[in-house]
């Protein structure tokens, strides 16, 4: 590994993934190479069904790839192995996720939802509560801490989800169309918050989006087509 690689927080080498659909093999990803530097951001665009979500799932080790290698910082993972619980523990601290749907847990308050991240990464609740409140404040939902998520608007929910992804200081955020369910104005606000907070906190970001404006806001933009990443 060269010195240069020290700065790389997430790297994929030759990731391939295919699904078998009704007996036929559907190749989704072919030889994906990707390098993400610390505190940098990368946007991925592509047609619907081209494999963007699949790529993020492989990077987060939610499912095994057909072949390829993954680097989570210094940790090297064989991408075709089945994800194990040791990786789950790494993932808890290393990667934060934001999805198009917010996936907040309805039985918990907003604050408890954010603190779930802290619980899962086995960090001290008391130490991180302050940070959670501060993040919610920055996201503009500081006054909703004790609300339950079903009483929030879509934009508010996504802000909470972003706070949840960031609260335990992950190295990388994987965001899959975080504004997909929001109207343009709200989406713009949420996207600004996400981008600004990531760059302020020095968190690397991979952003999957359909919106070219948001894509342009990241340091690097790419396009997923025919199973390959094309950098612009």
């Amino acid at each position, binding site marked *: 590994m060269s010195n240069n690689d020290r700065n790389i927080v997430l790297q994929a080498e030759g990731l391939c993934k295919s699904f078998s659909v009704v007996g036929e093999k559907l190749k989704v990803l072919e030889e994906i190479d990707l390098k993400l530097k610390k505190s940098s951001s990368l946007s991925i665009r592509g047609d619907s069904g081209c494999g963007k*979500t*699949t790529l993020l*799932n492989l990077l*987060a080790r*939610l*499912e095994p790839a057909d072949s390829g290698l993954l680097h989570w910082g210094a940790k090297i993972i064989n991408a075709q192995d089945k994800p194990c*619980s040791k990786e*789950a*523990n*790494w*993932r*808890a*601290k290393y*990667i*934060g*996720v934001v*999805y198009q*749907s917010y*996936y907040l*847990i*309805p*039985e*918990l*308050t907003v604050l*408890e939802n954010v603190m*779930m*991240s802290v*619980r*899962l*990464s*086995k*960090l*001290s*609740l008391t130490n991180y509560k302050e940070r959670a409140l501060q993040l919610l404040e920055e996201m503009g939902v500081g006054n909703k801490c*004790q*609300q*339950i998520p079903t009483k929030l608007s879509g934009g508010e929910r996504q802000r909470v989800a972003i706070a*949840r992804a960031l609260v335990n200081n992950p190295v990388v955020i994987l965001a899959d169309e975080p504004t997909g369910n929001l109207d343009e104005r709200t989406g713009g606000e949420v996207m600004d918050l996400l981008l600004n907070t990531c760059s302020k906190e020095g968190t690397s970001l991979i952003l999957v989006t359909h919106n070219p404006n948001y894509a342009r806001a990241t340091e690097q933009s790419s396009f997923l087509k025919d199973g390959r990443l094309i950098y612009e």
Partner: protein
Amino acid sequence: MKSAWPLFLAWKQLFPSQRKVSFFSLLAIIGVALGVNVMIVVVAFMQGFQQKFRTDIIDSQGHARAVPLHRQLDWRESVETIKGKSQVSKVTPYLQGHLLVQNRDYNAVPFSMGIEPTDGNGVLPINEFLKNGHIAIQGYDSKDLTPVPTTQTLEDDVVFITQQVANRLGVRPSTILQIYDLNKSENNSISKGDISVVRLDPFVKSGEWVIEFSNDQNFSLRNALGTIERHASLGSGPPDLGWGYPKFDIKEGDYPFASGDIYKFQVFRSSILEVYSPSMIENAKSDEMAPPREVRVGGIFEVPWQGFHADALFGTRRFMEDMRGEVDVCDGFFIKFKSEFFEDEGRLGQLCTKLEDDLDGDWSVMPWFVENAWFFDLLKFEEYLMVLIMIPIGLVAAFAIAIALMTTVLRKIREIGLLVAMGGSRFAVGTIFCFQGFIIGSMGALLGCALALLFIRYRDSLMNFIVTRIAGEEGQAGVTQFYDFYSLDVPYPWESEQSLSTFLTFILFAILVSTVAGLLPAWRAARMNPAEALRSE
């Protein structure tokens, strides 16, 4: 607490933030609680009945019975040997056999037992039996003042018989009624004091007795025939006319007695029975008809244990000897040990064996549970029955909880996917559902125990309420005759080890079943592919 997030989530899914409790968990917990409650109550009551049967059996035959292995002439010596043992509290020698008892054309052949009148209340609580069998006559214009007979009235020409024998023969012991004069209701006024009868022996004659006050202190006691009249004052009390006459007692009330206060009493003498022994009947065949032995009915008794002879008679040992035409014989002893020995069957057995040795092997000493082995078969059967009932109940509960949790898993597929994406291991995600089962089981079990304690605490009023609703006031008397739940001893868990183990068993059972019920949903959740879970709509 850092790693306990599955427990935290399990708790929160049952008791969500900003809401008191979820409907599902409320139902599940109440369900488990009711189940645990019913099981504990049923078992506790069964144990209460078992305990009652035990004491009833022991009451009717003592802890052990010694039977001579060959004709003993020196049985009195053996009695002394047994009495000398430090562990023994009471010994009662007895004679037994069957006698033909007749009243006019009615007859019965009760199982008859002769005991020493002096220790008549020794091993067998005959006075208790007499109390059970005593039935006061309910009259519209009279009040039954007959005192409950005791073994003190037992002599050679007196017998006690069971209710069933008395009914068959149409006989009764001596009885005394206070007759109310309906025209002079003031005389019945309760506040004027109470006249009771403290002794009514089996030899009193039928007749009427009158107590009449001449002023607030002095009164006369006389019979209606006018052959007897005694004057007395409240200070000295009513005179004792001796054996063969009723003895009264007067208690003063709030208002003093007044001149002209008259109290009338009617005495009915006890029935006379003609008794034949088997040998007398044998002789009758050869035309040597001996006159029957005439005895008085001294009292009617009832043995609480249903297994005891329904037709039975108690007389003195000498009466039985006379009937058998033998002198100084004994068929065996009833033995009662001191209380520290009879709770433990094993020790009781050892004690009996040791007693046999001490009696030089002339006597066989049988503990009550050997003689009543069937009783333990019954208990075993009852236990099996309980297990048989418990298994399906447990299964039904487990299925209900499993299905409910399974629905939760399916409803929360995407949340489960997210938890894995956020760094939860799939195993840990699965344990959320086991924990939910565990929480439901624990809370339900505790609630069920609380309910069971309440039930045991208020069982009498509850049973009373239920039985009167179903059977009515009169039916209740009938029910209590068979299932005397009022006298049932149902101990709290802090009072008896058996009760404690019942409670603990069902707590553990409920927790175990509920937790196991969570296993299937847990496995389902853990098996889920997180990527697909997140995709699912």
